Structures are given as structure tokens and as C-alpha cells.
């Protein structure tokens, strides 16, 4: 992978609707960038919670429209095009988005992608047990940034973590997150194994997206090679990596995530 994070935008305020939350984070990200928004060629939504429980079209398309990023046929025929779609991979989502952008950038010559994550209930409130947060990152294809990633999936029975949106009753529609008692133990084992397999030396700082508090600390206890300094992303889920990067003060970084499956993914980042 050769994908660099250019700017980030965060929003944890009280916008009335989930889509407004996302738009504010994305606007903050784009305002800091030194490119015109029309230069965003790929827009990916990686959040778990969806505005107004919308299943179709992609949330990314709705965002593209609200942000005014090449939404019309005329833009397309004028030589500016954007593709938008959603990725639903829990807190591995941001790393998967970087991986997809890297491939599409190299094959199709794309330069910029906008990735937006959110854990906000459709009405703008928190999607328990995660903190209400929307986060956006502008990515640029190039020769620095993410170096390599490693993915592992457990073969144990049952995913250990289940998140659903229950729409059976329109008056009580809600998101629900459930964890098996063994999930944290398996996640620690899998993330440790993935870190051991990941090639090359690990940086001094890391961001670990963990759906259950304590997983990163237990991995750090078990593995001497784990970075000494962990950037806090407590209570965050799909937004953890972008928020962690926004809090990072520079230098090489390790991104790690574990989630339902259990699955684990790690990637090293250096500019």
C-alpha cells in the first residue's frame, strides 16, 4: 500500500441527524485540504450506523450529493468523476478502505479519496456502547504512508460479536451490539498472532481499535514487540483509526484493529 492521510475532520457535537454529523466531519476535513473537492475521485463510507436506517443507496452517495462532489452528469462529461460506495467491516473498515483505494488508485490513476466513518444513531445520538463521533480522512495516493497490512481471521465457531439494527418495530427501531463472553480472549489471541506475523519492525506508537476495552492492554502485556505508546481512542469504534491519527503528533505509527469474527488487521504507516 502507498496511501497517505492528508487531512482529517472530526465532529462529536449535537447535530440532529446522522447525515448532518457525517457532513460536518467531512466538511472540516475538506476545508483543511489544499485541493478542490472536485478532485475527490473516490468516496467511501465505513461507518456501522446509517442515516435514517437507509440500506440503499450507499450512504457514500448521499454524502457525495450533500458535499457537492461531482454529482452531475455534466461533471462526469466534463472530465470529473467520483465513485461512491460503502464498506462495512467494523473497526477494520478504515484500513480496508485504504487497501481498496490503493488498488483503485494504482489501476485507475486516482489521486484522492475521502473516507468517512461514524458511530452515531440515526437521530444523531450515540449508538451504544460507542461514543457518538463522526470522522473523515482525505487520502492521497503516493509513495509514502501505509506500507503493508496483515489480516487474520479466526476459525473458531461463532463471530463472538454481533451488531444488528432491529427494524421489526418502527417505534423501537435501534442498533444492538452483543458480545459473547469469550470474545475478548479470542480477540487478544488473534491480534497478538497477527502482530507476530506482520513483517518488519513495529513503530513506537500505535492506534488500536478495540470493540471491548482492555484488549489492546492485554496484547501489550503479552507481546514485548507491541509499541510502547498507545494513542487513546477509548469508546470509539469505526472512527477510532481516523480519530487516533488526528490525535497523533507525527512519526511512524501502527494501526491495529480487532472485531467480529474475530478478525484482526494491522498496518504500518510512515510518511
Amino acid at each position, binding site marked *: 500500500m502507498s496511501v497517505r492521510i492528508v487531512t482529517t475532520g472530526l465532529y462529536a457535537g449535537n447535530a440532529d441527524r446522522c447525515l448532518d454529523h457525517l457532513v460536518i466531519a467531512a466538511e472540516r476535513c475538506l476545508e483543511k485540504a489544499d485541493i478542490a473537492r472536485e478532485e475527490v475521485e473516490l*468516496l467511501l463510507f465505513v461507518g*456501522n450506523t446509517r442515516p*435514517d*436506517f*437507509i*440500506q*440503499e*443507496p*450507499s450512504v*457514500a*452517495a*448521499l454524502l*457525495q*450529493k450533500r458535499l457537492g*462532489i461531482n*454529482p*452531475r*452528469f455534466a461533471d*462526469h*462529461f466534463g472530465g470529473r*468523476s*467520483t*465513485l*461512491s*460506495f*460503502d*464498506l*462495512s*467491516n*467494523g473497526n477494520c473498515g478504515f484500513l*480496508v478502505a485504504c*487497501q*481498496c483505494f*490503493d*488498488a*483503485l488508485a*494504482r*489501476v*485507475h490513476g486516482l489521486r484522492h479519496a475521502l473516507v468517512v466513518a461514524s458511530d452515531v444513531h440515526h437521530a444523531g445520538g450515540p449508538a451504544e456502547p460507542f461514543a457518538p463521533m463522526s470522522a473523515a480522512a482525505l487520502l492521497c495516493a503516493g509513495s509514502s504512508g501505509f506500507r503493508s497490512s496483515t*489480516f487474520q*481471521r479466526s*476459525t473458531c465457531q461463532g*463471530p463472538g*460479536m*454481533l*451488531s*444488528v*439494527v*432491529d*427494524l*421489526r*418495530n*418502527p417505534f423501537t*427501531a435501534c*442498533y444492538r451490539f452483543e458480545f459473547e463472553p469469550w470474545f475478548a480472549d479470542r480477540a487478544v489471541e488473534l491480534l497478538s498472532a497477527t502482530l507476530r506475523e506482520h513483517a518488519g519492525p513495529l513503530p513506537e506508537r500505535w492506534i488500536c481499535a478495540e470493540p471491548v476495552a482492555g484488549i489492546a492492554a492485554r496484547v501489550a502485556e503479552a507481546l514485548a514487540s507491541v509499541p510502547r505508546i498507545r494513542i487513546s481512542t477509548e469508546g470509539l469504534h469505526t472512527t477510532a483509526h481516523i480519530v487516533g491519527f488526528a490525535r497523533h503528533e507525527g512519526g511512524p505509527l501502527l494501526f491495529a484493529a480487532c*472485531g*467480529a*469474527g474475530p*478478525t484482526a488487521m494491522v498496518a504500518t504507516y510512515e510518511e
Partner: protein
Amino acid sequence: MPEPRFESLGAYLPERRLRSDELMESLPFRNPALLRGITGIVERRIRAPGEDSVVLATRAAEVCLARSSYAAEELDVVVSGSITHFHPEGVVRIEPPASHSVAQAIGAERAQCIDLSNACAGMLTAALVLDGLIRTGAVRRGLVVSGECITPIAESAMRDVRSLLDPQFASLTLGDAGAAFVLDDRGRPEERVDFVEMVTLAEHAELCIGTLNRDHGGVSMYSQAGELSRVGSGSDFARTVLEALARQGRRLDRKDYEHVVFHQVTLVNIQKHLRHFQERCGLELPNALICVDECGNTASTSHFVALERALRSEEVVAGDRVLLLAQASGINLGVLSARLGAL
């Protein structure tokens, strides 16, 4: 740079069939032939109890792998492109991703799992991503899969629709299906994916929305069908496709393509596309593959269900070049060009 090819393809259709005239009997329309008349859909398949999105996807993946030279454990990645994730009905599963459940069910033990969602262009978007991962050498082979357990949306419409102008009327065209294909890195001139391109024209993103039914729960699809048809099937769509082909030095005619596969919305919609292209090109158009009359609109799986049925009936044979055209909510438009081997 490695070139991808379609290595294997499979689809799964539930056993139970529901004819359009049967469906209409439960609705307050005097003419039971109305739905068939305006859509060309004779029947669609309906899930059996327990056949949710993951089960349909898994069945299709099993069919696909039975024809593949690869075992499940040799797959580097499984990419799901489903819209629907009912588990059980009325409950939409978010985590774990559907790709994870399919990988677990088929024994793809070392595959990375990716779930993406892009309305009815989901499988073609997954093909675009996997095509990129293969061309860049990130993976060597992967499975794209989708299970559309989408008739709960049609059943919701059957409770609500009272007129042809109802925004849920288009939901009556939906049918359940699963589809899967393997792409690998062994493409060559005789069989390869030539190119995949997609674009989102988000100005029209709200013309078709699947969301919570605020009257009785579950998911319903609300379409501005007339406007959607105008935009998604109109001259701008034709121009988008023809320009994409021209960039690759190709044309939409029988010299370049034996077959074209449109998103299977309705028979009438496909005929409208063909008229538009005929008017613009003036060429002899490729043969259009059609399954919507017997399967309904099976959402993201529709191109591959049509292709699978044409392969099994030998309407499509090894060496044929096919053009798959996406039009989906978003609005997403796209093209996938490929020459097929023995599938």
C-alpha cells in the same frame, strides 16, 4: 501487471416460484395481468424458511467453487456485495460482515473478508475492487459473492401498495437469488477481464431509497420510478457507456461483443435501453441476456444470474465477449468488459 479473468461462476435460486398474477391477487387491482404486462416479469423465486442473505450467498458460493479449480482454502479474499443482510427478517445484521459468514461456511480459512454495499451495483463494484487487488498483485484470487434475500421488501409492498403510482410499486418486481464468481490472476487474451469502470452521479441519490417502513416496521423500498427510469435508462446513461467503451477503443456492436447484460429491472426497461443504444449507435447491438422474466429483479446478483443461466443453456459459450452494464441507486453507472473462458 497480472490480468484478472473469470475463473468460475455460480448462482443459486430458491425452489419456490411466485407468478406475477398470483402476487397481484393479493392486491386491490382488477387486472391480475397488470404487473406482468407492464414489467414483462412472469415469475420470481421466493426464499424458503431459513434462507436468509448469507444462506443464499453461501449456496451460490458452493455452486461456484464446485466448478472452480480452486479449493476454498486457496482463496485470498472473499468480497460480499449484497444490499440485504436480513438475519432474521426485519433485523439487519451489521457485524460480523456477510463475507465473513460465507468464508466461514465454505471453509475459506485464510481469506480476508470485505463487505461492500453499493445498491444493485454491489457485485460489479466488488468486481472493480477485486480486479484492482489482482492487477496490483495484492491478491491472486478471490471470490465475489452476494445473497439477496430481498422479497421481504416485496412483501412489505404487498401490504401497502394500492395504486400503480405508489412509491413501493417497483418492489413488486423483486426476486431472491444468490450469485458468486471467482476472479484469478491468470487472464490472457482468450479469457480476461478487459476493464471495469464505475461512476456515481449522486445528484439523483434519493430517487430510490430502501429504509425503515415507519408504518409497520421492516425495510421498504421507495422509488420515484418514472424519474429513475428517465435518468438511469436515458440518453445520459447511453452516453456514459459509449464514452467508456470509446476510451478503450471499443463499440457496442456485435463485432466487439457477443452479449450485453443490463441490470435486470424489467423487460420493458431493457427494451428501452436497447432502443436508446440503437438510436445512438445505429449498429447491430449484441445479444441481450435476459432472466428478469423468470427471476424478477434480483438486485445486485442480477447480471450474474443472467450470465449463469445463459452459460448453462449455452447461449453464452467459451470465447464470447460480454459487456455488463450497471445502473443502480446512487445513481451508479458502470461497465465491465470481459472475454469468457469455459465457465
